[in-house]
C-alpha cells in the first residue's frame, strides 16, 4: 500500500517536473512541453489504475492552485478553458496506455510500449482534446482537428521515447509493474 501511494505521488511529481521543462508555444497558445511524456510514462510504467490515479492527483493539485501545469499554469482557469478537454483526456490517456502496456508487457521490447503510449497519449488524448476545443470554440470537430495537427509530430516523438524508457526501466526494475 505504502509503495503504491509513493509511486502514484512520485509520478504526479514527475509529470509536474516534466511540464516545467523548457517549452515552446503554438500559434493556438497551447504550450508544447514534456508534460504528455509524463502522462504516457505514468501509464506504461505504473499500469492503468496507478497511472490514472497519478494523473488525477497531478490534476487535483493543479486545480487547487499549484502552478504545475505546462507553462507554469495552475488553478481552476485551465480547467474552464479551451484546454479542459485535454486535461480530462490526460486521465483516460494514462489509463489506456497503461492497460495496453500491461497487456503487452510479457512480449517485452520497446515497440509495444511505444504503441501503447501512442494509442493512449495521442489517439485517446486528442479525441478528448478535440471534442473540448470544438465545444468551447463553437467550431466543428473537423476544424478543431486541424488545430490539433501541429502537436502530432512532437507527440509521436514522445511516444517513441516513452517506449524506449519503459523498456529500459522495466528491464532495470522489473518489480515496478507489481502493484
Amino acid at each position, binding site marked *: 500500500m505504502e509503495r503504491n501511494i509513493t509511486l502514484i*505521488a*512520485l509520478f504526479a511529481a514527475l509529470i509536474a517536473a516534466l511540464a516545467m521543462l523548457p517549452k515552446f508555444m503554438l500559434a493556438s497558445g497551447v504550450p508544447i512541453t514534456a508534460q504528455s511524456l509524463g502522462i504516457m510514462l505514468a501509464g506504461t510504467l505504473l499500469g492503468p489504475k496507478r497511472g490514472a490515479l497519478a494523473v488525477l492527483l497531478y490534476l487535483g493539485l493543479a486545480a487547487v*492552485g499549484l502552478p504545475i501545469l505546462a507553462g507554469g499554469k495552475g488553478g481552476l482557469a485551465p480547467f474552464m478553458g479551451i484546454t479542459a478537454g485535454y486535461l480530462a483526456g490526460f486521465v483516460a490517456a494514462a489509463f489506456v496506455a497503461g492497460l495496453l502496456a500491461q497487456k503487452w508487457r510479457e512480449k517485452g521490447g520497446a515497440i509495444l510500449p511505444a504503441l501503447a503510449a501512442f494509442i493512449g497519449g495521442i489517439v485517446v488524448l486528442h479525441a478528448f482534446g478535440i471534442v473540448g476545443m470544438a465545444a468551447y470554440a463553437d467550431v466543428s470537430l473537423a476544424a478543431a482537428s486541424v488545430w490539433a495537427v501541429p502537436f502530432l509530430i512532437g507527440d509521436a516523438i514522445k511516444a517513441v521515447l516513452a517506449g524506449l524508457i519503459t523498456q529500459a526501466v522495466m528491464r532495470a526494475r522489473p518489480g515496478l509493474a507489481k502493484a
Partner: protein
Amino acid sequence: MISLTSETRTPYHSWRAGPKLAAMCLFTLGFFFVDSAIWAALVLVFVAGLYLLGGMRFAREGLRNLRPMLWICGLIFGWHLYRGEPLPGFIAVAKLTVAVSLANLVTMTTQLAALLEVLERAMKRIGISAALRGRVALAIALVIRFIPVLGEKGGYLAQAWRARSPKRAGWRLFFPFALIAIDDAEQVADAIRARGGVTEAE
C-alpha cells in the same frame, strides 16, 4: 511551494471557498446556455467589474494571468470571422473569457489550504472513508515533497553529464532520471512502512 493566490487583499479573499466555487460553477454553467451577443457583452462587463472591485492593482494582476488567452480568443474569433459568423464568434469568445476569468478570480482569492479543505469536505460528503482520505492527504504531501527533490536530482544529473560530454544531454537523461526517482520513491515507501505504515481502508 509557490501558489497562485494574489497577495493583493480584496473583499473576495474573506469569502468562504466552498460557496465561491459553487457560485463560479453555477454562473459558468448558466452562461453556457446564453446565445445573445448583448447578454454576453453585459456579462463580460460584469466580470471585468468584479476584477475592478478588487482594485486596479488586482485587476492588472488578473489581466496578466489571462494574457495567454489572447491568442486563443484571436484564433477562435478569426476562424468565425473567416466563416462569416462574427456574432457566434463573439459569443464563443465571451463564454470562454467569462469561464476562465471567473475560475482565475477564485484561484487568485482563495488560499491553497482552503481549497484543500473543500476537497476534504467533498470527499467526506460523498462517503469516502477517513482512511482513504488520509491516504489522499499523504499522497498530496508526498507530491509536494517530490517536486523540488526531482528538480534537484535532475539538476545534478545534468551537471554530471556536462562535466563528461560537450554534447547536450537531452532525452538521454530521462532513463537515469526515472531510475533515481523510482528508487527514491521505494525508499520513502520503506520509511513510511517502518514508521507504522498507512491505515488500510475499510
